[in-house]
Every structure is written in structure tokens, then in C-alpha cells.
């Protein structure tokens, strides 16, 4: 016999109450855990993917769309810019590095990116097998794309026009796989890389004069901090192109998403408050029924503090179990999202990462348990043995 047997006995004696309280709390904690894991990793992935890119230059339109398309490969291109203008900008003294991007085609939902190897260098991507693309129509596949499409060296495929599956196929010019990348745990894993002129070739504009050639966007790294001030203004006012900062646009995106996160947090907090109330009511009611138990325990030599701690333990046991189940539930949800949903798998978010804020969740739940059981515990402490036992 010890405190745990006693507390467990009481919890088991009211299985429905116990299960309801644990369920309520674990739901609230589960939602918060999901938000913590998702939000943290989403932000990490975002900053991983935009590392080394100070500015995106593309056709005029929504700057957020331009960044989402060219950096994160989520949205559609805003349009094209002239190669000549892009090349002129690349030679600007404030530009340290400019990476061209030709987007717009895909193969079974995996995007084909016409660029040069300085783009894959941003991700420190290394070849697992084969060679980098050199000639037109040679393709290097990201690890996840290669796995999903079952591509191996020497395979060939026809790309589809557009970024969705229903675009018409470019049958006449087939791509050939020459290399496969090691995992980068970034967006590069889901891309198919080729050179810019391959994209032109597929679209039959290769033979046209240079003045007609276009690309989708230009990723720019600044040479010095002054460029951050001058270059965007220069591009936006003097050219037909627009400049968008990934850092600024992702911050803007988070502030938009933040509203949704706040709403979910609010709902989760409400559930937790309700569960706390429910635990308090359950303890309060069961303590009324247990007045005799308390008095009997006193008659057997239990001190007041012993009864006090027993009740506190009962409350904290509930919240501890609830919070641990909730955290597991949250991770399980992410695991389901990343393994069962294709889009989830492509985010590269892992369910097996734990954050220190989850420890704070557990500690907070314990504190909540103590608060909920405080009043019932004080009642237990004050039990008037004689009154209860003599039935008055």
C-alpha cells in the first residue's frame, strides 16, 4: 500500500469521470502540441529554404506570390521577365550572385526548375549518384522526387506544361535523368533540376533571338548591406520587374497565418480551462462522498497533511496523465499528417522532434492540477472526524 495505489484506486473507482477529464485535457494539450511542432518546424523550414537569398526579382504582381513560387515552390509564377533585363541586373555592382530560375513545367506534380548549379549549392546539395546536368534536357532529381517517381539514372520522361497534372505533355522533347541528389531536408528534395535552356527547348523558343528569351525570376544575393536599401527601390521604380524580399514576405505570411494560430490556441486554451473546471468539480463532488473515507483514514492515524497530499496527488495525477497523452496525441497527429497526406510529406516536417515548450506544457499541467485540487484538498484537511463519524 502506498500513495499511488490509493490515488489510483480512487481514479479507477470513477472510470467515466477519470476518462472524461483525461480526454478533455489531452485534447487541449494535443492541439497546442500540434501547433508548437508544426509552427516551429514550418518556420525552420521556411528560413532553411530562403537561406542565401536576399531578394527575388520577377514579373510584377504579388510579391508574396513571387517569393512563394521562386523560393518555396508552392505558388504559381507571376509571369516572365526578359532575359536581357535579368542579365543586366546580374551585372550590377551591388549584386554578388544572381541565380536564374525558369519555372512552369512539372512531371507528375513535381516541379521542374531550370537553373544552374549555384541554386543547388544554396542547399549544400550533394549527388548521391550520377552527374550534374550539363547538356540540354539532362535532369538531376531531388531525393524525395526521385523516390516518389521511382526515377533512376538513364530514365527519361516527358514534362507536362504547367504545375498541375492536367497540363498537356511536351512529348517531343523528353528529359533524361543523369543524377540523383542526397536528401537536403529542404524544398530541393522535391524538385527536378535542369538548365534554363532545356526549358526554352521544350517550349520551342530556343531558336528565337536572345531579345525574346524570358525567365521566371532571378534569386539575388547582395554584395553589401547598402544593396538592401538601394537595389529593391531601383528595380521597382526603374524596370518592369519587381523585387521581393523573402524575409519580409515570410514575416508577412506568418503574421497572416498567426491569426489562425491564435484562434486555434484560443480554442485549445478554452478546452483546457473547461477540463480544469471539470477536474475541480469531479474532485469536489467525490470528496463530498468521501467524507467518511477521510474520517476513517484519520481514525486510523492519518495526519491532516496526508489527506491533503492524497487529494492534491489525485488532481495532479489526472493532469499529468492528460498532458502526456495530449503530447503523444499531438505528435501522432503530425505523424499521420506527414505519412498519410502527400502534401504533408512534402513539407519535410518530422513528428519525432520534441521541443522544450512541451516540458513547459507538462509543468503547467501539473500546476493546473494542484490549483484544481487545492480547494477540495483544504476540505479534506479540515474534515471534522467526530462530526462525520457520528453522522451529524
Amino acid at each position, binding site marked *: 500500500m502506498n500513495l499511488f495505489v490509493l490515488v489510483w484506486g480512487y481514479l479507477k473507482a470513477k472510470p467515466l469521470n477519470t476518462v472524461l477529464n483525461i480526454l478533455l485535457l489531452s485534447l487541449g494539450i494535443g492541439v497546442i502540441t500540434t501547433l508548437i511542432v508544426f509552427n516551429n518546424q514550418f518556420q525552420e523550414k521556411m528560413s532553411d529554404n530562403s537561406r542565401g537569398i536576399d531578394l527575388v526579382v520577377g514579373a510584377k504582381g504579388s510579391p508574396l506570390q513571387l517569393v512563394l513560387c521562386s523560393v518555396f515552390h508552392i505558388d504559381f509564377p507571376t509571369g516572365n521577365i526578359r532575359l536581357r533585363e535579368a542579365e543586366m541586373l546580374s551585372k550590377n555592382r551591388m549584386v554578388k550572385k544572381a541565380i536564374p530560375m525558369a519555372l512552369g513545367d512539372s512531371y507528375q506534380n513535381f516541379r521542374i526548375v531550370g537553373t544552374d548549379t549555384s541554386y543547388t549549392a544554396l542547399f549544400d546539395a550533394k549527388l548521391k549518384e550520377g552527374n550534374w546536368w550539363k547538356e540540354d534536357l539532362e535532369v538531376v532529381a531531388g531525393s524525395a522526387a526521385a523516390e516518389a517517381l521511382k526515377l533512376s539514372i538513364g530514365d527519361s520522361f516527358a514534362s507536362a506544361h504547367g504545375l498541375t497534372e492536367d497540363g498537356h505533355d511536351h512529348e517531343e522533347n523528353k528529359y533524361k535523368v543523369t543524377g540523383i541528389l542526397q536528401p537536403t531536408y529542404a524544398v530541393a528534395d522535391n524538385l527536378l533540376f535542369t538548365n534554363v535552356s532545356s526549358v526554352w527547348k521544350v517550349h520551342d523558343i530556343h531558336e528565337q533571338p536572345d531579345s525574346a528569351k524570358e525567365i521566371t525570376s532571378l534569386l539575388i544575393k547582395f554584395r553589401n548591406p547598402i544593396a538592401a536599401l538601394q537595389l529593391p527601390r531601383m528595380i521597382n521604380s526603374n524596370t518592369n520587374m519587381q523585387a521581393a524580399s523573402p524575409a519580409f514576405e515570410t514575416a508577412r505570411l506568418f503574421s497572416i497565418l498567426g491569426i489562425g494560430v491564435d484562434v486555434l490556441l484560443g480554442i485549445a486554451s478554452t478546452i483546457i480551462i473547461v477540463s480544469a473546471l471539470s477536474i475541480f468539480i469531479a474532485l469536489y463532488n467525490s470528496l463530498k462522498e468521501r467524507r467518511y473515507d477521510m474520517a*476513517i483514514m484519520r481514525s486510523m*492515524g492519518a495526519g491532516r497533511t496526508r489527506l491533503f497530499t492524497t487529494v492534491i496527488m489525485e488532481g495532479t495525477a489526472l493532469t499529468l496523465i492528460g498532458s502526456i497523452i495530449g503530447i503523444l496525441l499531438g505528435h501522432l497527429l503530425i505523424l499521420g499528417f506527414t505519412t498519410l497526406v502527400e502534401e504533408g510529406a512534402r513539407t519535410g516536417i518530422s513528428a519525432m522532434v520534441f521541443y522544450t515548450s512541451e516540458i513547459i506544457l507538462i509543468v503547467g499541467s501539473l500546476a493546473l492540477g494542484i490549483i484544481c485540487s487545492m480547494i477540495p484538498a483544504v476540505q479534506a484537511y479540515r474534515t471534522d472526524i467526530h462530526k462525520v463519524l*457520528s453522522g451529524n
Partner: protein
Amino acid sequence: MIDVTSLTYTYPTGKTIQFPNFAVERGEHCLLLGESGCGKTTLLHLLGGLLRTNTGSIKVGGQELRELSEAGLDGFRGEHIGFIFQKNHLISALTVEQNLLLAPYLSKKEGSRVADVLNALNLPGIQKKKITTLSQGQAQRVAIARALMNKPDVILADEPTSALDDRNCDAVIELLMNVAKENQTTLVIATHDSRLKSKVKRQIDLR
């Protein structure tokens, strides 16, 4: 073992009861008799230190109870006194065995006499049973078993038989007196149950 001199108790309502002086020897069995409301339960609670406000003196095993603090009384009860109540008041969330082990646990003693005590009370093999599955007679005997767990010097029983039919009443009181005799335990039974009057010679009338 028990020594009561010039004891009075004043209820919160203002009513005062004057108890007779009496003493009970070690191992002696005695009945506290009287109609309901005459202060039997109050006296029993005073003897067991469940109730403190009194004038006069109560000595149990030579210890003046009023000199003990609240926590000291808790410890003293766990060490020296076993209670049996009218309704058995077992803790229904626990099994028979867990109920019995609660006694040594709450009084911070070692205890593994469960099987012995149950055998002595003719209750073999019910350790794992739930309290709610016991009959009234069984439950009352388990309550007695619990009171015996710590080998107390004194057992205070409050109407232990009034909820039982004649057959169970006989069995329970016989067992209680036998185990008390074996352990040299002082037994004080507060009752208005006339069936017990023939069983116990020493009787203290509270009228």
C-alpha cells in the same frame, strides 16, 4: 489501560454531559450501555482522541490525551487504537487487501498480517475481492480485521452489531472477543444492542 476521571463534554449547542468515572484494565472487555443520544459515541470519540474539547482527564495506556497535539493524536491513534464503526465504512474504491494494508500505511508501520488476520476472522481467500461484493456480515468482519491490523492496545467499537441479523451478530461478536483475548487487547463496545448484554460481563451504564 483506560482511566476516565471527572470527564464532562459540552456540545456546541450548550448541552453538557457528565460521564461517570471508570477504569478498564488491560485485556478487559466492557460495554458502554445507554439509549441513543446519551453520549455513547461522544465518549468513544473522546477515548479515541477523535474529539478533544473536554474537561477532566482521559488516560489511555498512561498517556493523558489532552496533552497531545492534533498531529500527536493522529500518531497515537495509529499506534495504539483500533476503531470499528456501526456501518463498516470500508473504502469502496479499494480491495479488501488494500483496505487492510491502509491501516499500517496510514500509521507508518510495516504490515503484512493480512492473511493471518483474515484467517482469524474466518475470511480466508477474499483478499482481492471488491468491497461492494461483500455481504454485510463479511464487511463488518473485514472492518474488524482492519482494526486489528496494527495490533492495537485498545479497540473501540461503536454499535458494531446493530446492522447485523442475529446469526451474524453472534458470529461477529464471538470473533471480536476471541481475537481480542488472543492479543490481550482491551475492548470497549458502545451499544444499545441488548443481544450483547449476555456476552460481556463488565458493563458501564451512561444514564
